């Protein structure tokens, strides 16, 4: 009975929480947010899924290998740093331009977003790998 309530609420909360994590990631440059808290929100959402539906049932329809996310995120973050070395500056120097999007008007885009996405994937991969390993034990 109680699990039915939790599962119904999880079906509503998890997509909203994923949207919140992506929004925190994208606005992270000049406002509070960034890759780290976005990753924590995503991990919270997926762990809510694991808690309310149980780890075995969740594995039947959603079973990625989280350590690959960790590795790919670390690769992206260091490639963002080394890319600026190739361009001739010091490590991790970033630049910004202004884009014109149809609905939003003028939006500032910084090249630090690549590093932030790398940190996002590292946090997701790290936390969910640990949760999954602990759950299987």
């Amino acid at each position, binding site marked *: 009975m109680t699990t039915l309530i939790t599962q119904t609420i999880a079906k509503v909360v998890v997509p909203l929480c994923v949207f919140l994590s992506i929004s925190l990631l994208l606005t992270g440059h000049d406002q509070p947010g960034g890759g780290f808290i976005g990753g924590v929100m995503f991990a919270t959402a997926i762990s809510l899924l694991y808690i309310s539906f149980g780890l075995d049932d969740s594995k039947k329809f959603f079973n990625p290998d989280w350590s690959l996310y*960790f590795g790919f995120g670390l690769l992206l973050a260091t490639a963002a740093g080394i890319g600026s070395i190739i361009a001739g500056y010091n490590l991790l120097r970033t630049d910004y331009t202004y884009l014109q999007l149809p609905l939003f008007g003028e939006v500032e885009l910084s090249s630090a977003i690549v590093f932030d996405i790398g940190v996002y994937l590292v946090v997701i991969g790290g936390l969910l790998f640990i949760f999954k390993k602990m759950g299987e034990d």
Partner: protein
Amino acid sequence: MNILEHTIVFMIAIPFLVASLMILTRPFPEIQKKLNVLVSIVLLILSVYLFSQVWQNGIIAYDIGDWGKYGIVLVADLLSASMVLLSSIITFLALLFSLDYIDDKSQNTTYHSLYNLLIAGLNGTFLTGDLFNLFVFFEILLIASCGLLIANEKVEITPSSHKMEAVYKYLILNIIATLFMLVAIASLYGTLGTLNMADMALRIGYMNENGTLPWHLIPTALLFIVVFGNKAAIFPLHFWLPDAHPTAPSPISAILSGILIKVGAYGFIRFYYLIFEGNLEIFQPIIIFLGLATIIIGSISAVGQDDIKKVLAYHSIGQIGYVFIGIGMGTVYALAAALIYLINHAISKSMLFLVSGCIVHKIGTRDMRKIGGLSSTEPFLGLMFLVGIMSISGLPPTSGFIAKFVLFDAGISGGFYIPILIAVIFSLFTLFSMFKSWQRIFWGEIKDNIFEKENIHQNSKTMLSSLVIMTVIIFVIGLYAEPLIAITLETAEQILDPQLYIDAIIPGEVR
């Protein structure tokens, strides 16, 4: 060559990149091992190049992201470059050893990537010029070494519960020290307004001249002594070491005892001589007292142990006390002696841990009461163990003799007679306990030396070759010590005069 200007940041960025590649190449174990060894050799060559650049051209500073002193600055002076070189050598040799020593299942999943994160953390700690960045790299070291402590060896001698208890103690005690470090850094930032180490040195200098040095910098300095002392395992804070170092697999024990303890001594030198330069003379008796207490506790506790690795772990505690006595004495000669002692202890203790790893790999147990008369079947390991023991106890012609001689000479010429007397007496304890353990393992009556016949493995050529390389280094330093003494004297002069360091980062400001 434009790309070699960025050498100092490649030391940190390449291990991070390779750690991610290690995760992605997990289906191909052969490629993983070969790539790791190749990257280790490349890092060794780069650290030699960095050291030669610093020796010729002076201090090198590198701003990350071109933010200048408001961002993170990487600084390589002689102390940093020599520590990076030392850590590259030891991690390369431990990697060669661990290719055949660690269980295949552990090696395939997490070992190599965590190893590269450990190398990145070590290089980052030694090369950074920003106090909060030091804290971040301490955290990376803590987490990476915890993951590596749990790795399994091919020989199953340590039950899983021992490993869990050791990791638990290591983690909790170091997290409490991390909390103290956060409070100390926050207090220092609130008082001085900057996190750059050179900038802090400038501001403390201005405050000292104006006479407005706030009194609460003294308790902050005491907190820093607690923090770096916990990393270096000096007297009241050493309780995590005798559990963590023996239960780790042998190459990881070698890295932990060889380099990770020295991170505490490095942080201590940076904070004592660079940031608070000249304001902390009242702490000198405290540091010498802590160093002496560490020597006494470490040497006495090592005498009655029955486990090979626990004897070596207690000796690690004792030998760090010698380094702290050298740092506390404060003259150029004493500081150079402390650095020579640090280098000697790193190489000798790593070698002893690797030799004990070979013994454990062949025999299958760590308990010295059950092993005896091993020199009839393993004369080569006996010889290697003897070289390591001679170096730790300070017998000629090994490098340990040079280190102890220079340290005691510096103490006597500085006028510290009673500390040196106590240190000499307790180094006799070291000599006694080391030779007793050598005698128990290799001589005496021959016992039934093969336990659990399915658990033994032969020592392979790569494992023995790292031992041979370390022996060569010990004898070279022991017989031809003049370049090393010249390098460390130059380093000590650079440490005691922070104006060069400040000039490299903030040009034009005088202390």
